[in-house]
């Protein structure tokens, strides 16, 4: 638990490299999963493109605006999912009693969970996110300033933290309930389905819920509104909109504290 951060980080790389070698052994499946990731993440924007080839805008947002929002969400999602994807498999580790080992080793248990295996379909997520953001950022109507560029970097990290925090909270349920895949599936879908559109089209009540109970708005909608100069549509004040990354980090901090507390409820399998 108390290992210096630097040493943990170097261990993290060693473990990730080993996991990657294990995964590339099955080449066909590797390629299929990467393609799957690309199609899955790209299908949402394909739908928006199909719609906006016949309509001018969604809630006054044009295609380039929505594409910017969409790719910002993908980028935040990729930044979160690359290091942390194994959090989704925590329930299996707990169910099979394999979490025992992580408690015995002198290393942060969460770090051991996330380095257990690499799921390669995430490479598809990363390729889609980077490619799409490359196109969207050139098409989008943003007056770039150094402050906005810095805000973009922080917003992607904050967005990753906001989504990651909720996934981490769901994974903490593993210590009590053993099966969490359906809850993960639901949370993923909420971020994916609602996060891809300008939230105000869903009405005030839904926007409020997706801002203050589940931080979907802070992943991409609020930051994209700031960068596109559309803070007028937002239900939050411009000052708070600029502070969006900080809200993501606060969520992550709280989620991690809760995760560690929930770990106490771990009961081994008794075998």
């Amino acid at each position, binding site marked *: 638990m108390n290992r210096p951060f630097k040493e943990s980080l170097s261990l993290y790389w060693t473990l990730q490299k080993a996991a990657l070698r294990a995964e590339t052994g*099955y080449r*066909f*499946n590797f390629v*299929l*999963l990467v*393609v*799957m990731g690309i*199609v*899955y993440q790209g*299908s949402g924007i394909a*739908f928006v493109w*199909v*719609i906006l*080839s*016949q*309509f001018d805008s*969604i*809630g006054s947002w044009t295609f380039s605006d929505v594409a910017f929002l969409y790719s910002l969400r993908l980028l935040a999602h990729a930044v979160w999912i690359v290091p942390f994807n194994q959090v989704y498999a925590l329930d299996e580790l707990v169910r099979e009693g394999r979490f025992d080992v992580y408690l015995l080793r002198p290393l942060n248990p969460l770090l051991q969970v996330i380095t257990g295996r690499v799921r390669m*379909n995430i490479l598809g997520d990363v390729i889609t996110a980077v490619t799409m953001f490359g196109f969207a950022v050139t098409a989008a109507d943003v007056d770039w300033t150094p402050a906005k560029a810095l805000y973009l970097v922080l917003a992607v990290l904050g967005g990753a933290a906001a989504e990651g925090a909720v996934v981490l909270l769901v994974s903490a349920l593993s210590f009590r309930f053993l*099966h969490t*895949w*359906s*809850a993960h*599936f*639901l949370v993923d*879908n*909420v971020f994916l*389905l*609602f996060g891809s*559109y300008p939230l105000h*089209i*869903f*009405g005030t009540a*839904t926007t409020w819920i997706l801002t203050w109970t589940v931080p979907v708005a802070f992943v991409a909608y609020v930051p994209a509104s700031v960068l596109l100069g559309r803070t007028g549509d937002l239900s939050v004040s411009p000052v708070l909109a600029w502070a969006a990354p900080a809200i993501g980090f606060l969520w992550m901090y709280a989620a991690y504290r809760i995760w560690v507390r929930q770990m106490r409820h771990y009961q081994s399998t008794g075998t």
Partner: protein
Amino acid sequence: MTASAPGLRRIVVARMKTAMTYRQNVLLLQVIVILNIFILSRLWTTLFEGRDTVAGMTLHTFLLYITVVNLQSWVFTDLTVNEYTYQRVRTGEVVFDLMRPIGFVPQMLAHMAGSHLFMVLSVVVALPVVLVVGTLGAPASPAALALYAPSLVFGYVISVLLAVLTSMVAFWTVETSGFTMLYRLINQFFAGTMLPVSLFPEPLRILAGLLPFQSTGYIPATIYVGRTEGDAALRALAVQGLWILILALATTAVWHRARRRVAVQGG
């Protein structure tokens, strides 16, 4: 065939009990479908602003279409039998299924029937919520209802045949999770769950016409809301019938080969 009926009935009941045991999973998937209906309804309401009709439908008809097509798709794109077949083939347990006095394909159909019956029950339970987030309403006319009933049944048969066909991929590849997810995505899109096929851009619309998926969603749902009627509806029913014939033949052919694959593996 009559002698195998009790065995098949037991599979149906067992599958329903399994679904009941994992009902929280069914419930959460149900929430996702409801969220989808909500999102699509809000999205299309926004897009309708300043227009009376889109794709020849008024807002009410359009939202009714979206709700009906998504409820159908919820039951039709169930992946239980794909996962089951994958597990049985991967572990080699499929050998025991093959030794049973009932054929493997009828067993798959029984598993699907059980799973789908449970899904239909969960749809019925969820209807009050669907009424709030989506749009429910009676068929456009008695004639629409009379045409919808056979069209829905045909659509269901096509979905079942497609599920059996895609499940058999498990006999050829070791890993099917990527394939089935991709298939489900393509299936739902071309079935018209997000927008009616008539709104697809030209190349996609031609492609949709060559694929069987619109026969499982778009066709029955547009008949329900009265968008497809009269001769057009009868032609659509004929196309559905043709797909049943093609897919039934394909399933038989693929199954013959799949069975041989198991023998090659040596059980």
